[in-house]
């Protein structure tokens, strides 16, 4: 994937970020039929993108803990949080350099968490089919979706959903 960055990148903290701005800024593309000129809403609470959910950390403090103090900076090119099984489409987190950090080192009693994010400025999740969504400053846990495993034999727990 080649990322072409504009000469002076639009900061992600621009209040009227549209999907067109976001795709241009991040170098990531979305499917043609998605509306590109509408401002992307920024949410500071619970929100979902496909089979991924972004949960304010306060909702899950007892269920989700860090297993290591190692965080990573979210780079300018973004970081893929989850790649879907049907369509190969990733959920990518993008943020202005130096504003957002993330880690995979989480333990979740539900077994669904895939990452924790902490951001001091607005960060965005982009997905080719679901478009873009804004995450307000704060700390969040990113979880996958599950359904009840309905096999007669074998693993009797739950099955992860692959979008």
């Amino acid at each position: 994937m080649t990322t072409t960055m504009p000469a002076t990148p639009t900061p992600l903290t621009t209040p009227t970020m549209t999907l067109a701005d976001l795709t241009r800024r991040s170098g990531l593309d979305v499917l043609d039929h998605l509306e590109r000129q509408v401002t992307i809403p920024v949410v500071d609470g619970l929100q979902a993108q496909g089979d991924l959910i972004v949960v304010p950390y306060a909702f899950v403090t007892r269920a989700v803990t860090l297993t290591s103090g190692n965080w990573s900076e979210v780079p300018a090119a973004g970081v893929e949080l989850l790649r879907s099984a049907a369509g190969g489409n990733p959920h990518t987190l993008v943020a202005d350099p130096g504003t957002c950090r993330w880690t995979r080192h989480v333990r979740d009693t539900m077994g669904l968490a895939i990452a924790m994010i902490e951001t001091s400025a607005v960060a965005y999740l982009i997905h080719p089919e679901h478009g873009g969504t804004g995450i307000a400053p704060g700390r969040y846990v990113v979880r996958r979706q599950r359904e009840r495993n309905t096999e007669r034999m074998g693993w009797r727990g739950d099955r992860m959903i692959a979008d």
Partner: protein
Amino acid sequence: MTPVSALSQGAHRLALARRLSDEWRAHGLAARPADRPAAEAAVVALYRLIDAPAPEFVWVPSPTAALSIVHDDPHTFPPVHFQGANLPKYPEGWPLTAQLANLVQDLRRGLDRAVGHGVSRGSWWRPLAIPAERALTTGVAIPAIIDMVVGDALYATLHNCVRALIRAESMPTTGGTDGMTWYGQHDAHWIGHYDAYARLGLAQYRRSDAELLALLAELARSTGWWWPGEGRCVMAERPTEVHTEPLPDALNGEVRLHRDDGPAVRFADDTQVHALHGTHVPTWVMTDPSVERIHAERNIEVRRSAIERIGWDTYIAQARLRHIATSGDPGNPGSALHLYDVPRELWSRPARLLLVVNGSVEPDGTHRRYGLSVPAHFDDPVAAAGWTYGLSGEHYARLARRT
């Protein structure tokens, strides 16, 4: 070697590896007639290596046709047992096919020694999921990158997604083991692996090993499945049609069988293999997916494929699932969540069905609907939806936005 030239040598090797991977994948997926002279010559050479005379060749249109011949001739194609008590003391007393297999096992041991590691995969195996170009620049060792691009990619495609489905269709899962199948073009994944290491200069094979590998490579390039026996060798033609789609997380050209308007694989005698997005399905899923058949089907992946084929709405209406409750979908204005009771036989354990609607719109303007199985104790669709994310109904009701 300076870092810069090491990197460019790596890039050069990667390009060559990609080309080899594409070539071997093409052989594995080939749907043109077998090159019979080349295949027969290779088999005769193999027989010679175990001091067996050249066999009579029987060509048939498909593995199914071949297996009926093999099963009907246990004298020429004796069952192969690997239990110690039943084995003759020396390999020379083994059935011919077992002697050839022994030869190939020794070959692979020798090749693995030259390569430096084995190709075997445990149940824990997962392919490395980063682009090879990035792996190169972050300093992943060249052999690991070659494994990713060639061996692992071909294994995922040819072994897991193609060979396994044709086996499932043509070989019964009950009964004893008869004969031993040799996979011709569907061995291209491990042959391509060893071939790539040699062509990239990463491994040096003994001459005898290289020659035997060349014979097997010739078979992978020229024929379908085959069964060697004493004095007789049955050869199945390659398919006449193979339909595939890219694997969703494919980074190295991986594909799986898929066709939704006909068989994914077809042979000249009209033997067919149906597959939907890589799932092997019986013909009825394609031609007559009725609720009765769905409920009678034991395989859950087949049931799911069949339900998706008729659509969740249709299935729910025709199966007359008991509607428990409906509520608004938090964060998804204008959409509803529906909870249904499901007959025990469908899911084999107590569960209910939550019908959800995507917040984002499909290219054709519709919103995709799909059913999720949830624990049976839920009466509230919002609580059931929250459960799918590990959240309580109260928390999930606060969902601000869904895309």
